[in-house]
């Protein structure tokens, strides 16, 4: 302890000091026994634990936030049932007997995870605004663990949300099969991962929630429209075909549609018209490569997000 004061004989000042705020130690209750904790040195194990808890926090918050589950279903359901039923009258002639809702369904499976993934990424902006990000940033863990936990958490939440839409397959005449369920869930997980990574990457730069949501809307909405979630990407006008091929979401929608259509019994003309293969300068891009493209972009954006959070204060 420090050296005692040089003098104690002068009377305590009375005018300024108000000491009533502090209680006498004598009145304090007996302290409970102390539980000593030793924090182990950093290892990959502690990083894994950190990733896991950041991931779990997203799930806990998702579970507590029923409102979000309901509100984020509105948009996909509007597309599926209102747009799908409404435009059916116009398109009946050209869909080879396929219900427009069935055609849109794979696209809607993608939209739903896109928008929830985006909201999940927004949580990092909220965390910053409410200070919680600081609690994570000052912990003795790598920033990359926080970012990875966040992205995986967001991806999980978004694909859980996607499961609700998957449950609606019967309403649009898509029969269930194990392949469909696991395939759709897997693709949704992948797309949600990439979108969340993209969102977190943006969140590293944009620190206000309004601007963040605005920017995300501005980027994600056109990507979704251009991707062919709502139309076949076959005979598009030149400018749209170019944009369509440049849009990463195209490579998530196309495998999703292929997967769902594989569960239906469609004529080859119908498949050709509604789910034409994606081509690059006439070369047919294999589905596996399309899926890999989405994955690779997700990883790149995750890498950028980590670098940005590492660089920040």
């Amino acid at each position, binding site marked *: *302890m*420090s*050296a*005692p*004061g*040089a*003098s*104690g004989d*002068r*009377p*305590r*000042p*009375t*005018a*300024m*000091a*108000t*000491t*009533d*705020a*502090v*209680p006498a*130690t004598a009145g*304090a209750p007996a*302290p*409970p*026994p*102390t*539980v*000593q*904790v*030793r*924090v*182990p*040195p*950093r290892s990959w*194990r*502690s990083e894994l*634990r*950190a990733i*896991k*808890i950041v991931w779990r*926090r997203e799930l*806990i*918050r998702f579970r*507590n*936030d029923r409102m979000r589950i309901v509100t984020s279903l509105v948009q996909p359901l509007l597309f599926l049932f209102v747009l799908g039923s409404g435009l059916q009258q116009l398109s009946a002639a050209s869909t080879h007997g396929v219900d427009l809702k069935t055609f849109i369904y794979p696209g809607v499976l993608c939209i739903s995870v896109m928008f929830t993934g985006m909201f999940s990424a927004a949580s990092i902006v909220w965390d910053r605004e*409410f*200070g*919680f990000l*600081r*609690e*994570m940033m*000052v*912990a*003795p863990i790598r920033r990359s663990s926080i970012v990875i936990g966040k992205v995986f958490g967001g991806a999980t939440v978004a694909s859980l949300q996607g499961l609700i839409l998957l449950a609606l397959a019967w309403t649009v005449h898509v029969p269930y099969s194990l392949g469909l369920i696991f395939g759709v869930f897997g693709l949704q997980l992948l797309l949600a991962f990439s979108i969340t990574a993209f969102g977190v990457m943006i969140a590293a730069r944009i620190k*206000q929630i*309004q*601007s963040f949501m605005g920017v995300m809307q501005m980027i994600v909405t056109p990507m979704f429209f251009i991707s062919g979630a709502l139309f076949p990407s076959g005979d598009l006008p030149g400018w749209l075909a170019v944009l369509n091929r440049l849009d990463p979401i195209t490579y998530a929608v196309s495998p999703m549609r292929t997967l769902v259509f594989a569960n239906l019994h469609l004529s080859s003309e119908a498949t050709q018209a509604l789910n034409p293969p994606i081509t690059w300068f006439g070369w047919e891009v294999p589905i596996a490569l399309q899926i890999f493209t989405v994955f690779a972009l997700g990883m790149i954006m995750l890498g950028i997000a980590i670098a940005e959070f590492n660089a920040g*204060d």
Partner: protein
Amino acid sequence: MAAISVKDLRKRFGDFEAVKGVNFEVETGEVFGFLGPNGAGKTTTINMLCTLTKPSDGSAEVAGFDVVAARDDVRRHIGLVFQDPTLDGYLTAEQNLRLHAELYGVESKVVKPRMEQVLKMVGLWERRDGQVMTFSGGMRRRLEIARGLMHSPRVLFLDEPTIGLDPQTRASIWGYIRQLQQTEEITIFMTTHYMDEAEFCGRIAIMDGGEVVALDTPEALKEAVGADRIRIETADDEKAIARLGEHFGLEATVSEGVVSFAVADGEAFVPRLFAELEVPIKSVSLSRPTLDDVFMNHTGSTIRDAEESSSKNRNRAALQAMGGARR
């Protein structure tokens, strides 16, 4: 061993040097108060000690680890309670503590007993399942303190732990600090704006203009002021100040509408003051030096003035944030 040891620590932001070579040591088990007007470099210094900001020059060791070279070791051994809340309002109190324990890698089997201990200490054990969103400001601050203690830190940093709290909560927070001193091997490093609270620190450092201008026990600092403080209300403050300067050779200032000055042996001076000031005096008060005087002596302003300007700054920052949000 010193819990904190700071050697010639500096921080520059561009051309501006916020911390200009600070030196001090904090002993293990001490309650160390860190005071200073806003913009004095207090926060920057704390941020460097907590590894949130990298020093431009000099070095600092916290809990025996260098803040730059062994950043994570420092982090593992310190607890932080910030002025601004850093809790997750959507989670319960227990979930917040558990999350902290996981982030800090606290051994799983001690998480529960430790949580019970710290929550009982701050009187929130019964509320552990409540969502933090529903907690009052005082409860949140107490929860933050409990959380900061979850991993048994060797040094606990408290940045204005009692600001904006009611007297009762302030009192209980000081109760915890006392209790911690007895039960844990912990050093407490705190900033405060409340001078009456600074009295309870073992030693205090006053920072101004990026330098530590005073460092000692509160008693010794008050003693060093030497003079008593006399405050007078007069009919004409300006004239009174001028007269005090010419006639008595005393330097007086006006603060909060009261002329105040320091003078040795104040009791004997008061009769002379009435006889020779030549300005009508409405009231007079005499006090022994307080930490406010110490603060004034070293920084040239009362802590209240410093606080006022800081709250003005805070308001301005809030307005800017709102303006920015609207953009």
